[in-house]
């Protein structure tokens, strides 16, 4: 992209694209991001009200709260949707701003691993309290 401009390649966009075309999964990421966002609208509202309700609560109150099946179910849904949405969102940010292919793939995978791990830790914790 630098130096004196010159032309040393004559190749059509079609020629370039052949063999590198759609993997037929282009819309999956976009759609998953929207669905998790949609799920998070009511779940986030519920979570904010819960946090206000629980501010300054004792350990036992929190345990009793999480032991209700409805709370536990909503909490698991919140955890799964949040970490899935987080992984999808940060992936887009990385893909937009990191241009080195190796660093890009490594950071996308690292973020994904971290999100899965944090989600599992949260799930195990709420199940341990609630069950």
């Amino acid at each position, binding site marked *: *992209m630098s130096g*004196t*401009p*010159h*032309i*040393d*390649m004559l*190749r*059509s*966009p079609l020629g*370039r694209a052949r063999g590198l075309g759609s993997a037929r999964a282009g819309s999956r990421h976009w759609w998953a991001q*929207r669905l998790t*966002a*949609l799920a*998070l*609208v009511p779940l*986030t509202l519920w979570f*904010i009200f819960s*946090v*206000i*309700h629980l*501010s*300054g609560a004792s*350990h036992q109150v*929190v*345990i009793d709260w*999480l032991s209700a099946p409805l709370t536990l179910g909503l909490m698991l849904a919140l955890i799964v949707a*949040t*970490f899935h949405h*987080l992984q999808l*969102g*940060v992936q887009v*940010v990385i893909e937009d701003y990191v241009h080195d292919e190796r660093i890009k793939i490594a950071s996308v995978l690292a973020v994904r691993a971290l999100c899965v791990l*944090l989600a599992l*830790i*949260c799930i*195990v*914790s*709420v199940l*341990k*309290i609630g069950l």
Partner: protein
Amino acid sequence: MRDVRDAQMIARNSDGKLVRRPLSPHLQVYRWPVSMALSILHRITGCALGVGTLLFTWWIVAAASSDDAFDRAQWFMGSALGLLLLFGWSVALIFHFFSGIRHLVWDAGIGFDAPTYNTTGWGVIIATAVCTVLVWIVGLAVW
């Protein structure tokens, strides 16, 4: 020229010499309309909320561990630094919530014209400010 995209960047000047076309001015040249600021804020708050999930994870792990661990987490959340983090987290969450709904409505194909997205943009900012203040007034009253 190595890339097809490059072809659009190279042209001939009046002497017939190949030259690189000038690039358009970068971000700092433009004034910041509300939509531009909200767009980047949506990303920044999203990433900040990602960091905030560490706080959430700590709290939930502490609740699953022991009374002592839970008391330590609760003590930190109530400390000056903890309250500051919680305040930042609440602003980020409420902003990302309203801004996200604005994005979802766009995805449905509604509200794309300039007067509407300027109005909804300011609406997101006002809603964030009002709801953050409300949440903290009610939260501190309960606490």
